[in-house]
């Protein structure tokens, strides 16, 4: 039957087209494949390795399918062999238990390597990371800069070439903080201080979004990430702190935390310094062995996550909230 052959060819074509799209990545619309920082770069490489390894199996299988369906179709004049009782071959079965095991073995090795690599912050010895605290609210993002003592909503500026240590929590249903061009996402969880290390190599504007559904206006939880040279960043932070912007007070925060979305970025010249810790504690942070106090958890200790997560916790993973 011609149609089935057709079908298989169509599939091969589609798969090939998809692989092309994946590998090209040059189009600037495919932001995940257009990394602008070391974390996203590692992840992009891993994506490409996994595509290639999968293709090694997928393409021959599809070709084999097309071949078999064509050759053994049930037509009266088909002369290819017909062996209705042939159902067993130790050799063949060994081969196809073996192939996926090898492929998975290779991919697994890469995965484990990068899982551990990314669990450690990528900090060069001579740079001091910038700390930014992230709080997801209904339905907006609050960014507080403990060193610069300023706060922003739905806008975050970072210095280019400097690792940024995001400490993240939520004072609303959980969300996920994602800046695709700088690196993969991590959840913002109530009562926990999650860690995410990102860095932009070049100045530029990057798309940031909430990635985990958190209610009605979730679709509007986007934020802009802007990377500027260090000097400009310092200028900017100073400007915010001393400019005409209002200060974020506790009452102001209560107001901000109420459900609703925010159209344009908002800037605050200052904020209550203990705000982030209070949010974490209020939502159950005191029960999290490591997440309760972001300052305890925050320091490069993140790299030691092996120690705290090695299945050592006896019940489930809910206590193991150490950052990657």
């Amino acid at each position, binding site marked *: 039957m011609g149609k089935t052959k057709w079908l298989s060819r169509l599939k091969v074509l589609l798969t090939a087209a998809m692989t092309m799209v994946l590998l090209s990545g040059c189009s600037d619309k495919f932001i995940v494949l257009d990394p602008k920082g070391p974390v996203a770069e590692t992840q992009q490489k891993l994506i490409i390795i996994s595509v290639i390894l999968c293709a090694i199996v997928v393409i021959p299988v599809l070709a084999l399918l097309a071949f078999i369906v064509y050759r053994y179709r049930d037509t009266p004049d088909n002369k290819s062999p017909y062996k209705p009782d042939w159902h067993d071959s130790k050799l063949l079965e060994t081969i196809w238990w073996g192939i996926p095991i090898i492929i998975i073995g290779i991919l697994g090795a890469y995965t484990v390597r990068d899982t551990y690599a990314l669990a450690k912050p990528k900090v060069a010895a001579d740079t001091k990371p910038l700390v930014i605290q992230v709080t997801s609210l209904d339905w907006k993002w609050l960014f507080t800069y403990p060193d610069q003592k300023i706060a922003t909503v739905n806008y975050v500026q970072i210095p280019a070439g400097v690792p940024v240590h995001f400490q993240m929590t939520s004072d609303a249903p959980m969300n996920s903080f994602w800046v695709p061009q700088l690196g993969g996402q991590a959840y913002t969880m109530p009562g926990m201080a999650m860690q995410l290390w990102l860095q932009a190599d070049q100045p530029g504007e990057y798309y940031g979004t909430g990635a985990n559904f958190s209610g009605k206006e979730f679709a509007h939880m986007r934020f802009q990430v802007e990377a500027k040279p260090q000097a400009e960043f310092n200028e900017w932070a100073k400007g915010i702190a001393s400019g005409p912007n209002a200060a974020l007070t506790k009452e102001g925060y209560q107001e901000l935390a109420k459900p609703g979305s925010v159209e344009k970025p908002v800037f605050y010249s200052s904020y209550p310094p203990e705000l982030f810790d209070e949010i974490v504690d209020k939502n*159950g942070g005191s*029960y999290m062995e490591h997440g309760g106090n972001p300052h305890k958890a925050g320091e490069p200790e993140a790299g030691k996550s092996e120690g705290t997560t090695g299945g050592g916790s*006896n*019940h*489930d993973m*809910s*206590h193991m909230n150490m950052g990657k």
Partner: protein
Amino acid sequence: MAQTAAAGHADHGHDHHEDHEGLKVLGFWIFLVTDCILFGTLFATYMVLRTHYDGGPTGAELFEMPGVIAETFILLTSSFTSGLATLAMHQGKVKSLINWLIVTAVLGAAFIGLEVNEFINLAHEGATISRSAFLSAFFTLVGTHGLHVSIGLGWMVGLMFQLKRRGITAVTKRKVTTVSLYWHFLDVIWIFLLTVVYLMGVM
């Protein structure tokens, strides 16, 4: 079962029942596996939340061990008497079977009474299910066990009437077997409860 239908003519009716009842006991064993997982999940949530007092009372402050130990003895004894009931059944003594079931049910009711009493006392002290995550997990775990025991009680009472009316048949035999299996199972769960909730709670 159906497969044997073709085999023998004279006694096929008998065969069916024997086989059918055996099937039901196997099914009940599998049900107990699922119930085990149900309790396992509740134990896991309790383990996660057991220290989440939210400023409320702790286990050590709340638990009255004498009552709990009494409950334990009563339930263990009832497990023993339900075993005696099964023994009587195998000896074909309907009366003694029913009597032992009555003793078991009375002990079960006493256990439930004590537990309800404990819960009421806790509630009076302000330790309700909505006070803290620890108490939510406590009431849910212990309450689920209590609910199981209560259902077992109702089942046992219903079974006594059936035994009285029909005597020991293949069907009633199977029913006594499953209910006593259930009863022993709840006993085992209680031992874990006693250890994990009460003993670890006061230590």
